[in-house]
């Protein structure tokens, strides 16, 4: 283990693509760990999954129009988010069904477009992503988008906090609740779309939700939840990349497994609600 860790540093110093992958993973994991906290607290976890799948037609259309995939993906991600809200608010259909309807329709449309365009852009690359081969433009895009999202959280921290925990109270005190809700959706879409490069459609939601959910088990305050979530996110990104480089494994998948392992450990052993402690307490 020690030796392979040494080897990892040797690889890191030798190969720029690994350095890039590491910096992108760290920046992104900070961003999605923070946004993830609001997603988890607001009960929007499935929304993240829905958006990540719903961007597919946008990616295909961007390819067709020869524009950056980012634009198309964001447009379709937002359309899906708004569509889900619209169906829910204008019928008696509940949010989970509404998510299911909208996201699968978008996904099917995306797959149809990808097969019709017959682009050589491998569907696999969109579905799984590969942080190791991220281009310079995409890397800079990731930094910029993550920066904007983090800045937005910092600027509207109080508003986010209030609307997340007590929407009625927030409304009563004159906060633009709707605006804040839209902002969360936009942040969620942006962060999902830039993460496509790193982990792909299928695994994005795990990195978004799991660090935040793990932090939720460990903390009682939003500020500490944000910190803990970020630490978990960054640590699992580093561990994931390290294992990926050392044992030649696909990077995104390993990152997801790393963060999932951390979750399982916390779930079982945390002092507050951990399953194992509770069982022990019962015995005693």
């Amino acid at each position, binding site marked *: 283990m020690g030796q392979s860790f040494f080897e990892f540093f040797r690889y890191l110093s030798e*190969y720029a693509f*690994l350095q890039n992958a590491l910096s992108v993973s760290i920046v992104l994991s900070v961003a999605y760990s923070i946004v993830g906290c609001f997603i988890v607290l607001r009960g929007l976890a499935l929304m993240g*999954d829905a958006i990540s799948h719903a961007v597919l037609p946008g990616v295909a259309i961007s390819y067709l129009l020869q524009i950056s995939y980012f634009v198309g993906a964001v447009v379709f991600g937002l359309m899906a988010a708004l569509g889900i809200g619209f169906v829910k608010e204008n019928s008696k259909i509940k949010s989970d069904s509404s998510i299911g309807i909208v996201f699968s329709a978008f996904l099917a449309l995306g*797959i149809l477009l990808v097969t019709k365009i017959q682009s050589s*852009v491998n569907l696999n690359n969109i579905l799984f992503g*590969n942080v*190791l081969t991220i281009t*310079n433009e995409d890397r800079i895009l990731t930094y910029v988008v993550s920066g904007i999202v983090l800045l937005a959280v910092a600027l509207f921290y109080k508003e986010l906090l209030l609307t997340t925990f007590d929407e009625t109270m927030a409304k009563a005190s004159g906060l633009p609740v709707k605006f804040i809700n839209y902002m969360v959706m936009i942040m969620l879409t942006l962060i999902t779309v830039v993460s496509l490069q790193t982990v792909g459609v*299928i695994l994005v939601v795990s990195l978004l939700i799991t660090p935040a959910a793990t932090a939720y088990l460990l903390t009682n305050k939003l500020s500490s939840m944000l910190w803990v979530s970020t630490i978990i996110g960054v640590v699992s990104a580093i561990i994931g990349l390290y294992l990926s480089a050392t044992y030649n494994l696909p*990077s995104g998948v390993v990152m997801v497994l790393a963060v999932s392992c951390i979750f399982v450990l916390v779930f079982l052993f945390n002092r507050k609600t951990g399953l194992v402690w509770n069982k022990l307490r019962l015995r005693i």
Partner: protein
Amino acid sequence: MSSIFLLTVMFQSCQSDEATIHTDDKLKVLSSFSILTEMVEAIGGDKVIVHNVVPIGTDPHEYQPRPNDIRFASGADLFVYNGLNLEGGEKGWFTKLLRSVKADPNKIFKIADQVTPLYLTEKDGSKEVNPHAFISPHIGIIMAEAVRDALKTVDPAHAGFYEETASEYILKLTSIDKLYRQKFGQIPEAQRVFIASEQAFQYLAKEYGLKEGFIWAIDTEENGSPEQLMHAIEFVRTYKPAVLFVESNVDTRPMKAISNETGVPIYSPAIFSDELGRPGQGADTYLKYLEYNLKHIYHGLTGNMEWSK
């Protein structure tokens, strides 16, 4: 929730009545992919109707046949495919397609049957046959002969015609083969270093004396793992190719990462490996495809745009 893999198109054999329509006396040939299709069209001339299964821009290694393919297949007189695992081998989609229409084994021809296979570099020692024999013109000749023999076997009435068109076609291939030898022969050995994304150019590299580098062995497997990238970077650092080539049907990001890392530029335009070019790209027939690749590889390696036949 992410059950995308279940979305694979269901294509249970839809044997319709129109399957057996014989509107004309042309031979109905089902061909697995663009290069072979064009070859059958060139040799079969107006005696054949060829249905191409895998469209340009789609990976021939993994493919889901569409209703049209099944419909044509159920009335086809001849089935040709590359073999050498290009269409997924024994358990691949082409075998399934043939089985679903209960194709007569006497009408099925593996065109690369007479090709001596080369094997992909696998780290774990397992041998996997490299399907991309057709990239090299010397193999194109063998395949053209096989197409000719297949046509003659199922349509003996026009044997003379096929014989004639094929010998013309093979003559052209032979002169392209000569051109390959001549052009690559002119390049000093240290400069004959070629690298592309997939290890598809193995037959070509071996026959014409190029040193071949690659990122991944075959498109179907994982592309751009850390080890693959490091290997390719080491290759570039050791053998110092003049340029890096990308193929028309691959994700260019892994090669961009290598270009970034080594400072060696990526050659543009893309060359062709698994498929012909679309109309207008200058590689829409097999002969043009061979010439196109030679022209651009030669240009990339030498920096010499001078191109005279």
